[in-house]
């Protein structure tokens, strides 16, 4: 009897670890299955597309087959034809432009939003102007920015800046504005001054929303790129798409579109990693 107890405990521990192992296995299998389902849908779409083009159901003048797009994608890495530059050149030119506009918006917009959330006076001062500017689509600024800044990089950067600026301000503002008043009272009763309340309570509590703003802003600046590059450009993914259109090369257009999509996703993933470093506790993703 005395010997039985420990042996049953050992037996139990073994059974538990065995059941955990089986559960993990099941979970991994389910994950694989879900991934396969997603993959299948992509493959089916590509197949239908390929077949539709090959059987001339869709005129190849309007849409290239996926295989053709893939081939053009590879060729564009070393062949500057037909638009005058290889893909990496377009890519770097666009990335540079988007990031300049984006970072300018972040550097000005985030602090502005944070301060607007904290100071009522500042909010009342800035908000009326901001509310009028906010609904104007960035593209509507193109004519004015051409008059002001010409058709160079500055003008294009300005358009992207405007697209990214608005979500930066709004989210930083809302984040600070929604700070739990009890937490502010905790800081006050500890004897914190305004600056300490702002930096130790309001900013950390606004961080998750601020990062949402950064994410939206990144998406906006990247998607405004094509419009900005409508202003005379010699390189850039948007420019490449435009050239594809004039030369009736749907494959080039789609290569440009896909490059924009993939880069956008990669940048967003980078931002998520930065967010993980900064946002702690309950709101961490």
């Amino acid at each position, binding site marked *: 009897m005395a010997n039985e107890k420990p042996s049953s405990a050992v037996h139990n521990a073994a059974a538990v670890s065995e059941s955990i192992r089986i559960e993990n296995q099941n979970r991994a299998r389910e994950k694989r299955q879900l991934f396969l389902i997603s993959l299948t849908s992509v493959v089916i779409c590509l197949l239908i597309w390929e077949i539709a083009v090959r059987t001339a159901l869709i005129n190849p003048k309007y849409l290239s087959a996926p295989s053709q797009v893939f081939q053009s994608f590879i060729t564009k890495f070393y062949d500057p034809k037909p638009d005058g530059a290889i893909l990496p050149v377009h890519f770097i030119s666009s990335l540079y432009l988007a990031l300049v506009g984006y970072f300018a918006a972040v550097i000005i917009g985030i602090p502005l939003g944070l301060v607007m959330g904290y100071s009522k006076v500042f909010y009342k001062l800035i908000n009326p102007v901001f509310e009028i500017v906010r609904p104007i689509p960035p593209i509507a600024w193109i004519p004015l920015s051409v008059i002001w800044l010409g058709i160079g990089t500055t003008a294009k950067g300005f358009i992207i800046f405007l697209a990214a600026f608005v979500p930066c301000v709004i989210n930083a503002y809302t984040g600070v504005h929604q700070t739990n008043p009890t937490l502010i*009272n905790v800081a006050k*009763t500890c*004897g*914190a001054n305004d600056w*300490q309340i702002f930096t130790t309570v309001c900013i950390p509590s606004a961080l998750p929303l601020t990062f949402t703003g950064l994410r939206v802003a990144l998406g906006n600046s990247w998607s405004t790129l094509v419009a900005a590059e409508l202003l005379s450009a010699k390189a850039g993914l948007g420019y490449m798409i435009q050239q594809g259109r004039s030369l009736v090369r749907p494959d080039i257009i789609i290569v440009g579109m896909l490059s924009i999509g993939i880069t956008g996703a990669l940048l967003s993933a980078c931002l998520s990693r930065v967010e993980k470093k900064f946002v702690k*506790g*309950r*709101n961490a993703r």
Partner: protein
Amino acid sequence: MSNDVKVSVRNLTKCFGDLKVLDNISFDIKKGEFICVVGPTGCGKTTFLNLLTRLIPQTSGEILIDGEPADPKKHNISFVFQEPSAFSWLTTQENIEYGLRIKKMPEEYIKQQSDKVISLLGLDRFRNAYPHEMSVSMEQRVVIGRAFAMNPDLLLMDEPYGQMDIKMRFFLEDEVIKLWKATGATVLFITHNLEEAVYLAERVLVLSAKPATIKAQVPINIERPRKVSDPAFIEVRKQITDMIKWW
């Protein structure tokens, strides 16, 4: 004024427009005393606390700590709010050290205080845990630890156990007594639970209905650890219950 008076409230009155909430309240708290404030619902207990922490200005009267007008920047005043108030982005240890860092205490002292409180609360295993990884009662213990870590001149608690079940409440009440004894803090504890008041306090202030005045001050001279079934305990509780009866 005798030397061992820590906090002195003189003729404190608060009006919100025409509504008089507190009417001419005066009392002293001795250094290291544990006082409970009870009163009917809506009598202005929370307003009273907000005045003591200087979150809102009084209409007239004064609050003195060590003979000087109370000022959170100068005095160590800690407040445990009714609702959970741990910073969600800080770990247990960082939460406990928060007030000390705001006061810009030397690093060594901060470490020493937080270690002391963490070990008193038995929170060692949760030192690096974030509030969302803990239960609500555990989070409230962190908040209470944060308040005690500041070595406060005056520690104010606004129904901190209002949301706990009865078992957790007994446990936390004993814990707060332990912390109080270990740190020698001066505590003012607001509750609507009379049993809790009699269990914890050295003296109970009974407030009247709005506009609140101090109806009575009841010293509790029952030895600790107290038992809720002790006849002396029941007697005092009954006495206080009769005072705030409005039915």
